[in-house]
């Protein structure tokens, strides 16, 4: 009984203080709750956080929404990354004749964190695609920005990627001829993989449970003047979802 009273007091005493992100130039509070009971108990080794007098806590979901009820339900940001199937490039390339092959993988990133998310891509090896002692170089954009067109000269043998989605960062947006701003495209903008993570998509705000879809396109280009040793070239790439 005492606990129930305490709960009512806490709810009604904070009619205008809703759970939200609070930030300044130095910090950001992801979640907060105000209740007048519970509290923290600490020792040198442990910290016990407790809330009391809360009824109806828990998560309720539908296809479009998720309700997390309770004083501290939102202290934990839920990140969900799905997809990321293996990429099998379409068609074999002739080591002498050259050409291009394409492939893609799609991931869905969702977060219930109001600060949003960032999606990065990185290669697990350098160069990414290797077959025994042979390898295929990473795509190198001509300038500082990603290339609007995948360029393969006669002496090139390389692999590049291009992300596409609603939250793709500016580097991978195109005006139609130049990358850096504009809109996302499935045929631009092309960049080289690196063992250093590169942000490909980012957006503020929660998007759970639907999430945001990002498709990463890959292209291998073998120039007509290159003799690429035959073999199955394999590499591993990692896409990481982080909360902001």
């Amino acid at each position: 009984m005492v606990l129930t009273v305490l709960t009512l007091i806490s709810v009604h005493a904070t009619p205008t203080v809703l759970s939200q992100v609070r930030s300044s130039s130095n910090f950001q509070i992801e979640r907060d709750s105000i209740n007048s009971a519970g509290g923290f108990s600490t020792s040198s080794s442990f910290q016990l956080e407790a809330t009391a007098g809360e009824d109806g806590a828990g998560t309720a979901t539908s296809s479009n929404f998720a309700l997390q009820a309770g004083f501290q339900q939102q202290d934990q940001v839920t990140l969900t990354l799905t997809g990321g199937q293996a990429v099998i490039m379409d068609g074999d390339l002739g080591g002498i004749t050259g050409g291009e092959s394409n492939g893609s993988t799609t991931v869905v990133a969702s977060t219930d964190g109001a600060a949003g998310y960032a999606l990065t891509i990185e290669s697990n090896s350098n160069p990414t695609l290797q077959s025994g002692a042979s390898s295929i170089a990473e795509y190198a954009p001509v300038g500082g920005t990603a290339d609007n067109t995948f360029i393969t000269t006669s002496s090139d043998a390389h692999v590049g990627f291009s992300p596409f989605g609603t939250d793709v960062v500016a580097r991978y947006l195109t005006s139609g001829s130049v990358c850096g701003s504009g809109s996302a495209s499935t045929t631009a903008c092309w960049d080289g993989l690196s063992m250093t993570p590169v942000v490909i998509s980012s957006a503020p705000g929660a998007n759970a449970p639907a999430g945001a879809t990002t498709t990463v396109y890959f292209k291998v280009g073998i120039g007509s003047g290159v003799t690429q040793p035959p073999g199955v070239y394999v590499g591993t790439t990692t896409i990481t979802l982080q909360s902001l």
Partner: protein
Amino acid sequence: MMRIGLIIVVFCFGYLGVAFAQSESFTINTTIINSDTDAPASPGNVAAVADTQTQALVTWDAATDNVAVTGYQVWRDNVQIATTTLLSYVDNPVIASTTYLYYITAFDAVGNVSASSSVVSLTMPSDIVSTPSVTSSSAGSGRLQSREYAITNLEISPALNSIRITFTTDTFVRTQVQYAVEGSEAPFTIIANQARRSHDIIVTGLTPGTLYDVDIFLTRTEFEAVPNETLQARTLAPADTTPPPNVRAFVARPTDNGVALSWQNPTVVDFDRVRVVRSEAFYPIDMADGWVVYEGDRATFLDTQATAARPTYYTIFAIDTAGNVSSGAVALAYIPPVGTPPPSPVDTVIPPPDWSLQLDITQSSGRAILQASSTFVLPYAEPFTLSIPAATLPSNLKTIVATLVSPTDELAVFRFLLRINPERTAYEATIDVLLEPGTYPLTIDWYDFKTQQAYQWQGAVVAVGMSESAPSQNPWWPLWPVIVVCSLGLYYLYRRQT
């Protein structure tokens, strides 16, 4: 109280932190197929000749391919001894008086290998360093009429100070040999008094490395002198076993079109050519330890077939006219992918475990090299040799690299291999003259392939002008007459005063 405790337990698992990340790793898979299954044609016109007693030159014509020929494999006695992009190969060393079988195969970029070329046989000379050029002439000097006696089985065997001539005649005749230094008007004559059919004449007292004109006369009587052969033969030169210095300033610079190599050839007079060998594994430690990408006497080469995405190691060997080979200068080329730092050839450098490096530096002039701790002082305008006694190193040691840094440009870094000498007593490298005085930081890296570790020693070479290299070399003894006279004068003055 129980209820309160239960509630506390239920809710106490809340999180305070919000640092989360989730990753998905996936593979990218692409297949490059062999669209070229046609092997190159076999190289033609394979030939092998003896350059010297211990050096063979193998040459061939370019092979053809439906796409392109990438290189050639040189085979000796069914063992592959070299891979090269060139159309010749100098096989050194080979053993005198030994017969070798050579053939060549061509291959393309995807590994299609041609059938073997025709096999050529080469028997290395026995005692001949330079094969004498034998010229038959029946005209003689004009004093004599015509060749009268047939000579067969003529053999010329030069030595350092003599030339041996053997031949057979179809009848019993006496031999008269006139010889003189080429172009000299004062020939010496040797006359054999006994008539023979099998002749063996040794001309002695000759100068090493000198070309002689030799006229052979055959006579039946004392009054007859019929010229049968006029030939030239060169006595052997003293064996040159001194390797040339390494090239200077060997640099491998990645470009859009390949790796640009540049160097300065040694300044010694018997320098003949260089050979550049490439490997993706490590610095080639001998002339056959990788791809031969260039051989000649130029000072630049563009290697258009280097793989830009991997470290590419080069060693350049200087070769003199006697076939001696320098220890090798090395350079590393690498075009790093965007955002990737180039790898260091030395991943982990730790001090030597339980032995110390004994480094000696000598110069051909025999001048004393002043050494203080790990600093060597020497005249800069003279080649010098770095030497590490083999007995002081672990037996499993494989590769030693010496690095000199210019005193005025720290980016001018010259690296050399120290190779075991023929006597297997020391690891050595000869460095050509330094171009300017100054302090050259010297680093010795050695790679222990057994323990997979690298070690390093650091010191310096202080190159000074000749006058600075050592205390005054002027002896005092030429002044002794002055000293004696002055002493007598002082003694005279002393006696006068007393």
